[in-house]
């Protein structure tokens, strides 16, 4: 049998998705269910006064109305919503309950919940709840939080949540800047992003008829983590909870939290003995689901006269939003290690201050800290290139780790050990695919002709941290869990294989990828493999899906469990063939004595033998059911070169992305089709930050663009065909040599696009462009540059 790993096998998931057979949370209906209607604060910061629920309670079909204070008095909360990543000992973490009782801290925070027998009835009744608010001044930006004229939380005396530093070599950094021939300084805004997964979040909690047990269906990335956290937060014993993530339509990090609605549904279902549900509306999502990014970045780079970097110094002011959600404070830390990019940086220092604002909390969003880091260093590299007077490709070449050549297990200035890399050939491949020299010639001819449509070419050579995470590394960051992943591989009597995956898909294609790994390992047809996942009763052990970890940790666990199956099968085959195990070879799904292909046993027959247990070696356990928990020894570090080509209409300020070239290296690929899909989606998501998306707030903390009419998620019409290419540098962190590709596109693309825009506008003297580069912003920037020239 030929290998299936590395082939573009069509995804097993897609027929069900394309024919609407999959059930998402909102598709699952239960008799007697009650809908929650959330009464949300219209103010970003206010004291909650009296709440009159009488009209709502009297409305048709309303079962109950509870205020935040009443919910607290009912004893539903054993603890506030969890933050699993207290990044410092003295981090400020204001208590956060599913419904506010005394003070609200962002628009949309829940102050009361209506339970009604229909969705529309619940929303209508919620409008009848009258709440007296005493409006307080809002802190609606990082700058306002830093200024400190007002406090986001009345009972705190500062908006500062924490200060964190990664300064392995402060003297070295100071020396680098003191002795630098060139220095550049970039100040960048990472605007807030609304994740906008295709499926909004939703919950359905079903109590057992006998009481005491609750099953929660949630559109979540993290059923396992949710189970632990709901138990800790509600006091319901963990072994009385079952969490099911049914078909989930995208997450991008926004579905890895523990949310007020999830806790309300579970506790109220448990209390009332009736199913309780809620589905987020699209406009509600801007308040009820965390947002991404939200940072002000300052990066300084020092170099010698040739542009060889001697030091990098970074400071972040990070917007936590109103509360610490599950990993809110840790997102900037995830990025901290990547501000040195793919470069040989002798001295590096990073500091970060986290601030509270009266805005929706921030937390992980595709890349989580790493796209921000990549953006800053890649923008700074272009600035350095201009300063030194060399091209953006050349400045990168001069600074690549290991001189741009192949390396393994290389320690960087940010204290990480990169598993493997080979950067210069990757850059060369991208430049060739882009026909870079022709693009530069075209750019020059347009400039010479005085064209009103300027061409811009932007490079980004990124690296990311995937395969979260070695548990010991997480301990060093004070993260409240490990980073292992669990897998079970079992042969059924008929020769079919069941895989139980601890990592949970929400669109990635785990069923296909895991089937391919098992098929190659066991020499069977991938269609004979069934992958079970996303239900804590079926898959009790797991740490779920985020941080491009599924393949590099969970997929590797599958492979290692398969190895155990093969090892056990070898013992049985040796016993039955009356041969020494070392004399057996396993090929094409069969064990045979070396040199005697006539004496062969298919692995399915061996598995059946393990089931009947009629003829096993003495003392061997029956059945073929092998488990593996894999804790990776290191992260994986995929990398790549992205090139964006933009055309800017200087009359309107419009930026058109006319070509995009991405040459990525995610190590060995299990399924190139899935890699390609991940890259396309990730690239467009990063391009979206550069050109279209950004949550806009007024000074009172109101989101001005919560709907998809105003928050511009791009469609296929706005992006060109993406040209992809690959280099392959296997990871040393795992036996499959895989790295991860889920976030790569996002990490490379925003910087590539903005570098392209700055490149296009450089003749006007434009050196920076804030994201998103709206036509108005580009037009005004051109005008200002012309006026200043």
């Amino acid at each position, binding site marked *: 049998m030929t290998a299936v790993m590395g082939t573009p096998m069509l995804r097993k998931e897609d027929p069900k998705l394309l024919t609407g057979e999959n059930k998402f949370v909102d598709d699952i209906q239960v008799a007697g269910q009650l809908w929650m209607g959330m009464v949300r604060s219209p103010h970003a910061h206010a004291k909650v006064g009296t709440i009159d629920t009488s009209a709502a309670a009297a409305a048709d079909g309303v079962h109950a109305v509870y205020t935040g204070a009443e919910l607290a008095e009912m004893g539903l909360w054993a603890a506030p919503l969890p933050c699993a990543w207290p990044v410092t000992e003295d981090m400020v973490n204001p208590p956060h309950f599913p419904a506010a009782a005394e003070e609200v801290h962002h628009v949309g925070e829940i102050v009361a919940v209506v339970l009604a027998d229909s969705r529309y009835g619940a929303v209508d009744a919620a409008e009848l709840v009258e709440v007296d608010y005493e409006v307080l001044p809002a802190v609606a930006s990082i700058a306002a939080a830093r200024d400190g004229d007002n406090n986001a939380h009345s009972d705190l005396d500062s908006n500062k949540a924490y200060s964190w530093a990664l300064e392995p070599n402060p003297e070295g950094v100071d020396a680098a800047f003191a002795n630098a021939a060139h220095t550049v300084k970039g100040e960048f805004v990472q605007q807030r992003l609304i994740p906008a997964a295709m499926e909004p979040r939703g919950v359905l909690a079903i109590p057992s008829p006998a009481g005491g047990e609750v099953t929660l269906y949630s559109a979540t990335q993290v059923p396992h983590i949710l189970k632990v956290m709901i138990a800790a937060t509600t006091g319901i014993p963990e072994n009385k909870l079952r969490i099911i993530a049914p078909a989930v339509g995208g997450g991008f990090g926004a579905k890895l939290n523990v949310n007020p609605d999830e806790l309300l549904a579970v506790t109220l279902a448990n209390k009332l003995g009736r199913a309780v549900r809620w589905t987020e*509306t699209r406009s509600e999502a801007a308040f009820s689901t965390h947002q991404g990014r939200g940072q002000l970045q300052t990066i300084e780079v020092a170099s010698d006269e040739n542009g060889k970097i001697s030091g990098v110094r970074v400071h972040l002011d990070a917007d936590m939003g109103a509360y610490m959600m599950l990993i809110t404070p840790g997102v900037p830390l995830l990025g901290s290690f990547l501000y040195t990019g793919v470069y040989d940086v002798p001295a590096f220092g990073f500091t970060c201050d986290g601030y509270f604002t009266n805005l929706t909390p921030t937390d992980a969003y595709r890349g989580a800290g790493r796209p921000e880091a990549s953006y800053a260093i890649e923008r700074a590299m272009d600035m350095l290139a201009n300063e030194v007077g060399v091209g953006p490709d050349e400045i990168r070449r001069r600074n690549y780790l290991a001189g741009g050549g192949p390396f393994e297990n290389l320690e960087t200035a940010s204290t990480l050990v990169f598993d493997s890399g080979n950067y210069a050939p990757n850059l060369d491949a991208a430049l060739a695919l882009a026909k870079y020299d022709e693009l530069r010639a075209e750019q020059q001819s347009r400039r010479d002709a005085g064209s009103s449509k300027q061409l811009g070419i932007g490079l980004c050579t990124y690296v990311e941290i995937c395969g979260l995470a070695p548990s010991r590394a997480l301990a060093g960051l004070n993260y409240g869990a490990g980073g292992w992943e669990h897998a079970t591989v079992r042969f059924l009597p008929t020769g079919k294989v069941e895989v139980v995956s601890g990592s949970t898909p929400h669109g990635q294609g785990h069923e296909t990828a895991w089937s391919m790994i098992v098929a190659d390992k066991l020499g069977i047809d991938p269609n004979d493999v069934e992958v079970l996942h996303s239900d804590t009763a079926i898959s009790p052990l797991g740490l779920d899906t985020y941080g491009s970890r599924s393949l590099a940790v969970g997929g590797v666990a599958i492979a290692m469990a398969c190895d155990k199956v093969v090892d056990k099968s070898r013992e049985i085959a040796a016993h039955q063939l009356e041969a020494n195990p070392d004399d057996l070879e396993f090929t094409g799904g069969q064990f045979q004595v070396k040199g005697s292909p006539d004496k062969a046993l298919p692995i399915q027959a061996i598995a059946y033998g393990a089931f009947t247990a009629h003829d096993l070696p003495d003392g061997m356990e029956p059945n073929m059911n092998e488990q593996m928990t894999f804790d990776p020894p290191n992260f994986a570090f995929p990398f790549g070169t992205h090139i964006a080509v933009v055309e800017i209409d200087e009359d309107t300020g419009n930026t058109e992305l006319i070509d995009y070239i991405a040459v990525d290296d995610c190590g060995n690929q299990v399924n190139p089709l899935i890699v390609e899909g991940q890259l396309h989606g990730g690239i467009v998501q990063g391009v979206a930050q550069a050109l279209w998306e950004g949550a806009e707030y007024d000074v009172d903390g109101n989101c001005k663009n919560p709907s998809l009419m105003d928050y*511009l998620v791009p469609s296929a019409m706005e992006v060109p065909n993406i040209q992809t290419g690959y280099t392959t540098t296997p990871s040393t962190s795992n036996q499959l040599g895989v790295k991860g590709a889920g976030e790569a596109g996002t990490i490379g693309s925003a910087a590539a696009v903005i570098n392209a825009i700055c490149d296009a506008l450089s003749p006007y003297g434009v050196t920076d462009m804030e994201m998103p580069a*709206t036509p108005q912003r580009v037009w005004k920037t051109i005008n200002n540059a012309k006026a200043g020239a």
Partner: protein
Amino acid sequence: MIPASFDYVEADSADAAIAALAEHGDEAKLLAGGHSLIPLMKFRLAAPSVLVDIGRLSDLSYINDGGDHIAIGALTRHSAIETSDLLTTNAPILAHVAGQVGDPSVRHRGTLGGSLAHGDPASDLPAALLALGGTLVAKGPNGEREIAITDFFTGFLETALAADELLTEIRVPKVPGAGWSYQKFNRRAQDWAIVGAAAVANGSTNVALVNMGPAPMRATAVEQALAGGASSADAAAVAAEGASPPEDLNGDAEYRTHLAQVLVGRALDEALG
């Protein structure tokens, strides 16, 4: 995203719809394709207590040759206008602009009459009709009347239609050889125009603007300048005269004014070129 409660009446004829409007007065709204009204209701920016559904009145969906004009039923979908040979030949700007509205699913639901009666200044089709010229036929309890397109848009989401009137037909002139252009500027293909400009040159030149004031409008200063012999560039320079551009996340008044000048210039170059 959850509309307030409302009653639903399905009209089986134009007269039944008019009778329902007369019965319920200001509380009632006509529902055609629903692509303007339903979003407003979902945001609870509109909360009519009665919806009179005229979406199934197929006898108001047609594109006919009326001799010196083309007669279009008010319930004709954008997609039918976009693909009509009669319109592509005789009033090509209308067919083209219908293809610029929203996305394919919007164009298969939205209706010409609905778009005009809603009167959104950011919509494409009102500007195309203003540039093309034409007459609207409205039917009420006292029978039919004709309204010139230039008299139709009276304010923000307000038209010359009375509360108990139903727009039944749109009559556009045949201008098979006329020069025309539609310049739509937006950030995503499916969006409303940040600013748009429509021009039809058939002897004299009509120019209309999208999203430059509370209502769809003609750029009369441009038209007068052209009539007075100004060049396209000079005429385009006065594109925003008399306009009161809105300000939002996509553009302030200064930017919209500039865009109007650029887009009118491009429209004139194409229509007159």
